């Protein structure tokens, strides 16, 4: 049996511990220069947290990684982003192929107005899987991975809106996991949730770590400290400092990082 995470057409990997690298990325919303010369690598199977004050570009950077920014008209990006040494612009057949490998969870839970089952199955169906047996198997498998199976197994045909806010967000995570991505982008996934639901999301991140490369944008410094292996601090469109989370939080090299972490601004 071959290594199933590597499609036959993919070039051989040169680095085994780096999953995504961004090099000299600049980004514009119209005339607004939102990202300046950002270079950052994110480790395979690790959790990388992106922190910084509002408007610092951390979400914009996250959305560059699965080319989601392209859906906003009038935007422009330069620089390169590589997933396993494959350029995300040239290395994939089309953008939807990239997005099945790089999944995304949004700030506010946004389940489709469909049943719980159909929410999870959606990604499979749009990617051309019609076999009911595979879909049923995959939905159950995914909901178990998202630790939601026990809560919803008896109401799979109910509307996703019947779920609580925290459950909805975990359903959105399951929805992203269903197409078996290698990377999971999370844009402040718990910012709209109560503390208990937040804990559940954080526990889930801890479980998923290892199998998935996770990049999480967060406002919550404690959360970054709890869940991440590596932290990158963004300020005014620039990546100021990146390093091991413990190092960033205990011994930041940059003054601005220290000021932000100690709560002097932001």
């Amino acid at each position, binding site marked *: *049996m071959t290594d*199933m*995470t590597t*499609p036959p*057409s993919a070039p051989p990997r040169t680095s085994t511990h780096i999953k995504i690298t961004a090099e000299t990325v600049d980004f514009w919303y119209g005339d607004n220069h939102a990202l300046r010369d950002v270079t950052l690598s994110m480790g395979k199977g690790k959790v990388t947290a992106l922190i910084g004050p509002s408007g610092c570009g951390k979400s914009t950077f996250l959305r560059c990684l699965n080319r989601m920014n392209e859906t906003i008209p009038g935007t422009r990006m330069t620089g390169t982003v590589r997933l396993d040494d494959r350029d995300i612009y040239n290395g*994939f*057949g*089309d953008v*939807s*192929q*990239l*997005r*099945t*490998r790089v999944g995304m969870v949004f700030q506010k839970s946004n389940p489709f107005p469909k049943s719980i089952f159909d929410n999870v199955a959606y*990604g*499979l169906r*749009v*990617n*051309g*899987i019609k*076999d*009911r*047996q*595979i879909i049923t*198997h*995959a939905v159950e498998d995914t909901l178990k991975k998202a630790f939601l199976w026990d809560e919803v197994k008896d109401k799979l045909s109910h509307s996703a809106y019947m779920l609580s806010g925290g459950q909805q967000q975990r359903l959105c995570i399951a929805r992203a996991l269903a*197409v*078996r991505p290698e990377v999971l982008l999370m844009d402040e996934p718990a910012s709209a949730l109560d503390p208990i639901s937040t804990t559940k999301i954080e526990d889930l991140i801890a479980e998923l770590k290892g199998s998935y490369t996770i990049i999480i944008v967060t406002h919550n410094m404690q959360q970054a400290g709890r869940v991440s292996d590596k932290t990158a601090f963004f300020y005014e469109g620039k990546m100021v400092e990146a390093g091991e989370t413990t190092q960033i939080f205990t011994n930041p090299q940059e003054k601005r990082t220290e000021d932000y972490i100690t709560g002097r601004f932001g």
Partner: protein
Amino acid sequence: MGNGTTVLATEQINQVLNNIGDRKKSQGIIPKSLTLLSVLLIAAILAVILGNIFLGGIGVISWEFISQSPAHGLEEGGIFPAIFGTVALVFLMVIAVVPIGVLTAIYLHEYTRPDSMITRAIRISINNLAGVPSIVFGLFGLGFFISFVGGFLDSVFVIADDRPYWGQPAIIWASLTLALLTLPVVIVSTEEALRAIPRELREASYALGATKLQTILRIIIPQALPGILTGGILAVSRGAGEVAPILFTGAAYYLPYLPTQLNHQFMELGYHVYILATQAPDIDKTKPILYGTVLTLLVLTFLLNFTAIFIRSRMRSRRVAD
């Protein structure tokens, strides 16, 4: 694989799922072209209708056509009385509908909370008023304005001894019927304008000690004027095209005089089209005049609509610029 009856091994399933991104996806050419086709079809139908009317009518339009009265059993002459009647009709209608529509919009927007029972009841009424069939408005004009109001006026002020003076089809009743029909148009348009007025403007006025009514009269209404104008024009355009409500509230087949009093009957362009198209003894003889009348009516309503759309889009872009 792919045979639904055989049970797939987990490994086979994983094989499929792990390479999910590499599967071919349809590019949706069929839905795109089908929906584009419906756009093109609608555009083509519209072009045929407008082209046919334009080509059929343009040769007929002349100064004589719009300035003379019909002659020889409507087979010759012009349509001046119908144009005059239409203008008089919508003029009276506007006088009635614009103040009431504007005041209603002001009430809904400035005086009540959006979720109060009264507001909701009024809103439901406005929505339903917009959906009542126009022929039902005609029945209402007959039953309420002519029989009830007109009959009442006749019983109070005896003007002519035996003939009804108010209790008969007349331009005033037709225009009031149309005013009720076009009321939602004015309200909706005015409300859109009111919504665009920034809150600070109202507060600034109150802060200077102006009362609510002063604020409405001096700040809000002048600011909302383009929206009110738009609503008025759209109402005119709608009113000028409606025939069913005036069928039995005052429109006349042919009149030797122009309506100069409120209780006169009147000729009207839309009604004239209906008469020429359905009642003419020899349709081939009346056809040119028919086309000319239709073209006149269309040009009139389109000019009004375009003006309204123009004012509205300027109003909207100004709001965006702010």
